């Protein structure tokens, strides 16, 4: 594949993810605000976005940090939320076989729900060669990275000035809610969500804020069982 075809693929990736970026901006701003409100200093709050680069996990971590949860519980909760990336990594791997070590390392760091969604669609629909697929993936993934970093820095800047009466922390469950519904696709995922939600309410009193992890485990178990026993 020549340079111009590769450049076309790169811009096609940018173009595909562009409409999604508009929805990412408020999410990033809220992640920045939440980090500041949790009590992180501005440097930590800003650094969290490039270091973690995963919105739902950043929000959940900020929420637990604000409540002084046990450090291990905070880290585990964030990693459980991000376990879905293993699934994306697996489904992109056959299309990206033959990637160099550096490209693998950087490409993995940039993997998000959104970049995965646009790339996996493209790889199914077109027969780009490896160079084209890599260009398309990086075009979409880097666009999302820049948008996330800029919007979360914006959140950190405004975050310190938002009066508590605005109840902006309520945006956190709202973001999770908007992310939740698209994940409910069939009977199993619906059951997993219902069991996890009710368990989380029932187990809220568990020490160390372990209720969330326990509820997630129960919900996942319910989903798996429903699939094994139809």
């Amino acid at each position, binding site marked *: 594949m020549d340079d111009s075809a590769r450049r076309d693929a790169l811009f096609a990736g940018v173009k595909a993810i562009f409409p999604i970026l508009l929805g990412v901006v*408020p999410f990033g701003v809220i992640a920045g605000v939440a980090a500041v409100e*949790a*009590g*992180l*200093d501005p440097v930590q709050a800003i650094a969290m976005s490039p*270091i*973690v*680069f995963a919105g*739902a996990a950043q929000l959940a*971590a900020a*929420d637990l*940090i*604000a409540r*002084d949860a046990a*450090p291990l519980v*905070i*880290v585990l909760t*964030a*990693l459980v939320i*991000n*376990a879905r990336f*293993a699934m*994306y*990594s*697996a489904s*992109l*791997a*056959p299309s990206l076989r033959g990637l160099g070590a550096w490209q693998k390392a950087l*490409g*993995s*760091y940039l*993997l998000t729900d959104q970049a995965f969604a646009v790339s996996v669609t493209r790889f199914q629909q077109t027969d780009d060669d490896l160079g084209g697929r890599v260009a398309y993936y990086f075009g979409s993934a880097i666009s999302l990275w820049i948008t996330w970093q800029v919007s979360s820095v914006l959140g950190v800047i405004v975050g310190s000035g938002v009066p508590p009466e605005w*109840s*902006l922390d*309520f945006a956190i*469950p*709202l*973001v*999770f*809610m908007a*992310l*939740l*519904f*698209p*994940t409910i696709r069939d009977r199993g*995922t619906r059951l*997993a*969500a219902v*069991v*996890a939600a009710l368990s*989380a*309410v029932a187990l*809220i009193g568990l020490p160390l804020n372990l*209720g*969330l992890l326990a509820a*997630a485990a129960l*919900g*996942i178990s319910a*989903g*798996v069982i429903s699939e094994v026993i139809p």
Partner: protein
Amino acid sequence: MTSHSPLLLWAMIGSIGLGTWLIRLSFLVFLGRVERVPPALGRVLRFIPAAVLAALVLPALTHATGEFDLGTDRFAAGAIAAVVAWQTRNVLATIAVGMGALWALQALGWLR
């Protein structure tokens, strides 16, 4: 506001970042040696987003005051936003309607 020390916060942020990168890297590196995701693992991974997100949402609405209470502004606003999230699947619309409903309910002062 947290009472964890800055050093501990850095350690947590760093651990989450490193762990997340390793998860993202996992199959890009291993697939080649392993042909596909083991079915048992795939089955567990499939249910994680729905379970975790649901477990994050409901307690934030039912325990807005710290205690179980369904008569709060937040529970009502959350219920309204849930309908929007379900119907539109749009993050921006869900935030806008949910925050708008919360502010309106707080101004009205009918609930807790």
